[in-house]
């Protein structure tokens, strides 16, 4: 049986700490161990509990990174990045440019949603996306997570790992689906990748040709030639899916794709509204049905004009 994402993160963290580095965060050693992704270590083993002062806590980890520790910093809800970002974005990400003093740290930023209200829910990788000095990866599989960690360990930049709790049980790798002359190409990010695969499978069974090209490396964004060709050959262009608001990563990479392919690329992300706690007022990532509906709507709208 292949390892799950949960088991992979736990093993990587264990080895990281056994090698002498540290893992910092709030409420790490409580029941649950951050969704079972941490080894049951304590401060003497390198698992460091910070106080609940988010901005200061992030700054403390930046200081440890500056001292060469290569810390892992666990932020249990991505929405808490609004407090954590200031010193990471303004010091850790700029230190190499200004002083030639790298400040490499791996930020485990964990998304989840469903009944957790206006701050804690969904992904927030767009907060950091505009800043120089950061690499953003959103791994949803065990191999992708290992790749992200290994890249971090051989680099001297800040790494923002946009995780999602619903990926933790996943033990499958997600392959791209590319057809000749597809109807549309999906470019899903984070947890939307699973719904995109389901939507594509159902529409393909219904006779459509839907490409799915998974987006793992968010920044730097590289628009590979194979992807560009797939997009250019798609009758109705592309659709970027994200678990964050559209006004960020999704619009940015859609913009790059459009410039390079001269094809139309739309976005389907969180709605532009505040999430409430009750299901009827929540703001969830696009699900399978919403993705299918959007694809069919694009096809209907542009059917006569083609792209």
């Amino acid at each position: 049986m292949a390892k799950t994402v949960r088991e992979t993160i736990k093993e990587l963290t264990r080895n990281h700490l056994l090698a002498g580095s540290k893992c910092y965060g709030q409420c790490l050693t409580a029941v649950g161990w951050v969704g079972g992704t941490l080894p049951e270590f304590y401060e003497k083993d390198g698992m460091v509990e910070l106080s609940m002062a988010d901005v200061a806590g992030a700054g403390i980890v930046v200081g440890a990174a500056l001292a060469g520790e290569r810390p892992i910093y666990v932020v249990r809800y991505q929405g808490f990045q609004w407090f954590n970002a200031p010193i990471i974005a303004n010091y850790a990400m700029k230190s190499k440019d200004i002083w030639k003093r790298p400040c490499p740290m791996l930020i485990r930023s964990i998304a989840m949603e469903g009944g957790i209200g206006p701050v804690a829910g969904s992904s927030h990788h767009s907060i950091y996306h505009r800043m120089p000095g950061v690499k953003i990866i959103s791994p949803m599989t065990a191999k992708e997570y290992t790749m992200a960690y290994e890249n971090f360990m051989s680099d001297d930049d800040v790494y923002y790992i946009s995780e999602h709790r619903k990926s933790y049980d996943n033990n499958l790798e997600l392959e791209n689906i590319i057809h000749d002359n597809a109807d549309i190409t999906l470019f899903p990010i984070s947890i939307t990748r699973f719904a995109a695969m389901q939507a594509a499978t159902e529409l393909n069974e219904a006779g459509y040709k839907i490409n799915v090209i998974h987006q793992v490396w968010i920044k730097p964004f590289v628009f590979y030639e194979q992807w560009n060709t797939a997009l250019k050959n798609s009758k109705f262009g592309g659709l970027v899916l994200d678990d964050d608001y559209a006004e960020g990563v999704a619009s940015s990479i859609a913009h790059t794709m459009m410039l390079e392919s001269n094809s139309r690329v739309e976005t389907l992300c969180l709605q532009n509204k505040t999430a409430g706690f009750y299901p009827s007022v929540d703001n969830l990532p696009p699900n399978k049905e919403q993705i299918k509906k959007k694809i069919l709507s694009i096809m209907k709208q542009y059917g006569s004009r083609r792209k």
Partner: protein
Amino acid sequence: MSEFRLNVFKRASLSRNFEQFVFNGIKNKVFKLPIYLSAGQEYISATIAQVMNDKDIEPNIFIQHRGHSTYLSFEASIEKLIDELLGRKTGCANGMGGSASIHSVEKNIFGHDGLMGSQVPIAVGHCYKTQEPTIVYMGDASAEEDYVLGALGWASTKNLPILFIVEDNNLSILTEKKVRRNWEMQNVAKAFNMRAYSIQDEPHSIRDSLAGAFDGPMLLNIGTHRKFWHSGAGIDNEDIFDRYMEEMKLLGPKALLIHEETKNKVEKLWQKQLEKQ
């Protein structure tokens, strides 16, 4: 007069003469960037640097934006600071740091990013990792940042060998402390179970307060006076107390001679660096 006091004066004199030259340069539009002069406050770093030197301690130093005197007191390269203010790649921060973000690898001085007070949690994290003697400077305004207070609390919890220095000139740009708050930093630090004292920038007071520094976290709130404007070349108050001039009077002809020699040295260094353009 004690040798210690004279040695502190030498360090302070380097800073004062450097800042006076820069002050004149700003007026003559030599510089193309905002400059934060530390004149008037130089006795704090001059004294602490002398004490560290006498005790043979080489601390990690986290500087703030008004940091020329800290940089110079701890004997970082004056030529590189001049080049930095001139925006050259040979500057101490590769021409990127300007006046506010200077640093020195050789002297373990870490630059400041411009986010007021961010150096405090960063210093705490660095100290936690290294467990080495660490000094972090902040102003009485940046001390009010919430993340500074959070970092003080954690440094106390972890009993780190760190010294927090509050350069208290009573001003945030021009807003006085009494307008901004009704509490004092030494009391906040004490509430965090940390040793803390409120003193003035008189060298013996600072030296005596440093006894036991790095045995655990400690905070010194040091009253001082900013001689020039918050930024740029100007004087807010001609009558403001000037520790440097007071010490020069106290130390007599020897100090006057040091002042003159240092002034000539600084001017020559500036001329030499300016001619390189």
